[in-house]
Each structure stands twice: as C-alpha cells, then as structure tokens.
C-alpha cells in the first residue's frame, strides 16, 4: 500500500529537486540547502486506502474505519529529512570545503576560457597571415582532439579493468555500477567535443597546407627551373 502511495516517479521528482538544492548550495547560489522527502500526499493515500480496505469488515463489527485509517496514516511522518544526517560538524566542514573548491573551480574555468580565447586572438594578431595562423591554431586543436578522444575512450576501459581486478567483496555491485556509469556519463560528452576539435584542427591544418598566399613571392628555385625550361 505504501509503495502505491509513494511511487517511484514521486521519489524521483523530489530527489531530483534535492540534488538541485545541493548543487545550488555548492555553487554558492544559496546559503543553505534542504534534502527531504515530502510524505503528506502519501499519508492521504494511505489513509483513504486503509479506510477502503477496512470498510465492510469494520461495519460488521461496528468499528470506526475512518478513525482507524487515520491512526494508521498518522504513523507516517510528514517528511523524511535527510539533512538531519548531514548535521554532524565533520560532514558540514567537508561540505563547506567542497563549496570553496567549487567556487575556485568555477572561477578558474572562466579564466581558462578567457585565456584560450585570448591565445587564439594573439596568434592571429602575431601571425598576421591566414596560413600561418591556421597552422598554429590547428595543431593544438588537432593534438587536443586526439588526446581527449583517446583518454575518454581508454579511461572507462582502464576503470572497468581496475574494478574487475578488485575482489568481489571490496565493492558492492551497486558501487561498481554507479562508478562505471558516473565515469561513462562524464566522458561521453568529452568524446563528442574531442571529435569536434579533431575535425576543426584537421580542417585548419589542411587549409594551412593547401592555401596559397595571393601576394606570395615565387620561390627562387622555382623561377630558376622555369628559366631552364624556357632555355
């Protein structure tokens, strides 16, 4: 009956909201966070369901089904508060540390994005030549693409091997599954981005090799060869 009153979809919806609260707290968007499951709706369902089940028999034995159903539902709390489990000072210290770390990380990520954009602009400005700039930008893009693609393809395999080498009692199958899908979920978008970098890098490199400058001076060796042919 309780499973009917608190279905999987309701748990999922509320837990997703809880994780959103935790992430917002870690990002510094909120100053506190709550992790709880609201059971009020489940209580109402349990009460009406109990009353319905007790109904006919209660009538026969002159028992107030509504009152009994209410007393049954009252045993369920209004909410399950997971935040209470996080109230220990040690755990709160760790969460605060994680919050600082996330703040530094977000700042560093922004600086990194600006630095990469600035480097690309600088290369274009210093090179003052399409061919040269394309080669100097294409080469890091291509190499990063290869590196990212290789690491995002090989890391899950290495992880699977490492987890597989552990004795079965070291980690529960649940933890093993979570670790594997966590890494897979993290590296899947890296693979796509790596491919994009690889393609952009390759295009730039090919362009830099095939592109001919409009006002490029002819090479002396080529001129000599032409003269020889005329002669």
């Amino acid at each position, binding site marked *: 009956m309780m499973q009917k009153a608190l279905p999987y979809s309701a748990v999922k919806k509320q837990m997703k909201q809880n994780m959103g609260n935790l992430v917002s707290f870690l990002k510094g968007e909120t100053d506190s966070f709550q992790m709880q499951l609201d059971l009020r709706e489940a209580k109402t369902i349990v009460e009406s369901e109990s009353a319905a089940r007790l109904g006919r028999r209660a009538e026969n034995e002159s028992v107030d089904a509504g009152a009994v159903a209410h007393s049954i539902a009252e*045993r369920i709390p209004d909410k399950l508060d997971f935040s209470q489990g996080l109230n220990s000072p040690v755990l709160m210290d760790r969460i605060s540390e994680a919050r600082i770390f996330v703040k530094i990380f977000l700042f560093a990520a922004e600086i990194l994005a600006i630095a990469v954009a600035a480097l690309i602009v600088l290369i274009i400005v210093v090179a003052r030549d399409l061919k040269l700039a394309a080669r100097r930008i294409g080469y890091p893009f291509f190499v990063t693409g290869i590196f990212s693609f290789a690491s995002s393809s090989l890391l899950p395999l290495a992880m699977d091997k490492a987890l597989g080498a552990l004795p079965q009692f070291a980690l529960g199958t649940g933890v093993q599954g979570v670790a594997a899908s966590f890494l897979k979920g993290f590296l899947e978008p890296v693979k796509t981005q790596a491919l994009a970098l690889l393609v952009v890098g390759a295009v730039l490199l090919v362009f830099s090799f095939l592109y001919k400058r409009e006002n490029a001076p002819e090479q002396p060796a080529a001129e000599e060869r032409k003269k020889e042919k005329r002669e």
Partner: protein
Amino acid sequence: MTIKTGILHVLSLLLLFTLPLLVFSFNAKNTLLNPDFYDKVLQENKFYENLSQNIALFFGDSLGGDGQYFSRAKQTQ
C-alpha cells in the same frame, strides 16, 4: 628562427596545454555541477526504485501487513 616564429611557437604551446584543461573543465561544469547528470546516473542504477521500495518496506512494516489492519482497528477502538 625569427622572433615572430618564436612567439608563435610559445603561444601555440600554451594553447596546446590550456585546450585540454578547458575541455575537461567545461565538461566537469556541465556534468558534475548539473543535477540532471546525477539524476541520470541514479536512475541507471535503479536508486529511485530501491529507495521507493525501502521506504515502502520500512513504513509498510511499521503499519503492519494487510492482515493486521483489522486487529489494529479493534485495539484502537
């Protein structure tokens, strides 16, 4: 090697070191700090189903099985 080529070499090398960091930091930002990512991982590992079942079992036990409702009703009365 001219100064210009030297500078371009250094800039290109810097780009080579910063680009992978950017790729991984961008992904970390979009996955590790995204509730949808955890939702997907937990769903794949049947976390919600197990939690729902465990809560149901816990309160189901405290409420009593179907057969116990009526005896509890009598006690309450």
